[in-house]
């Protein structure tokens, strides 16, 4: 047993020290996504209907590939945080909630990995 007082134990662990990761990460990814979304929308609009070779050349450019990877990573992390809150808000049954929370995380990682493999494949092999 510690002789530390309850006050001493919590001192320094107040707001923003722990327990706000979810909130904070949602905001950090949001800030990152603002400029990346501008770039994404602008790029997709300009390459709408472009032949495959041109799209591959665009995505194969190291700067574009980097921006796309960051967009995908930040977007899917932001997505998983947001969908998690929706599940927690609306799903009452504990077992179903757990299943959906797991599905949410797995889907985010799987979709993100898939996008990353595709972008890297284009960037490296230029297929």
């Amino acid at each position, binding site marked *: 047993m510690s002789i530390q007082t309850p006050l001493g134990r919590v001192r320094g662990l107040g707001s923003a020290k722990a327990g706000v990761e979810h909130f904070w990460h949602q905001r950090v990814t949001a800030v990152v996504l603002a400029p990346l*979304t501008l770039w994404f*929308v602008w790029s997709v609009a300009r390459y709408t209907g*472009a032949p*495959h070779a041109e799209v591959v050349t665009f995505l194969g450019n190291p700067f574009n590939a980097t921006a796309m990877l960051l967009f995908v990573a930040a977007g899917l992390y932001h997505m998983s945080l947001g969908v998690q809150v929706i599940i927690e808000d609306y799903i009452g049954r504990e077992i179903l909630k757990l299943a959906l929370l797991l599905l949410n995380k797995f889907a985010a990682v799987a979709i993100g990995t898939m996008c990353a493999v595709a972008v890297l494949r284009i960037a490296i092999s230029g297929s």
Partner: protein
Amino acid sequence: MAQSSSPPQPRPRSPHLQIYRWPVTMGTSILHRLTGFGLALGTLILAWWLVAASMGAETYGVFEGAAFHWFGRLVLFGFTLALVFHSLNGVRHLFWDLGRGFEVSTANASGIAVYVLTPLLTLAIWLLAYSSMEAR
């Protein structure tokens, strides 16, 4: 204890959704969640596009066939609308996180600005896309 013969009074309830006059901020809040969930589903389209592009011209053609189909265009238009709304409204949320723009008049005005700008920006994006296609 005095016994009451009348049945117990029903507990007071808070007014339900239909009773309220919908405040601007309520609409934008609900739409923010709705568009966010829609965009989550939309990540599958993004993955499809990238994977198709990485697999070669033939597979990319299949994606294009679906994307240019009228139903594909409808889905992609909805995706653009949701992306624009969620992005613009997200900026509002970031300002609120800084403790700014909380006054009712400001929050209403910024919400209406989002409502006005969302369709305008969405149309501008689609005009850019169509004009890029025409220019090829």
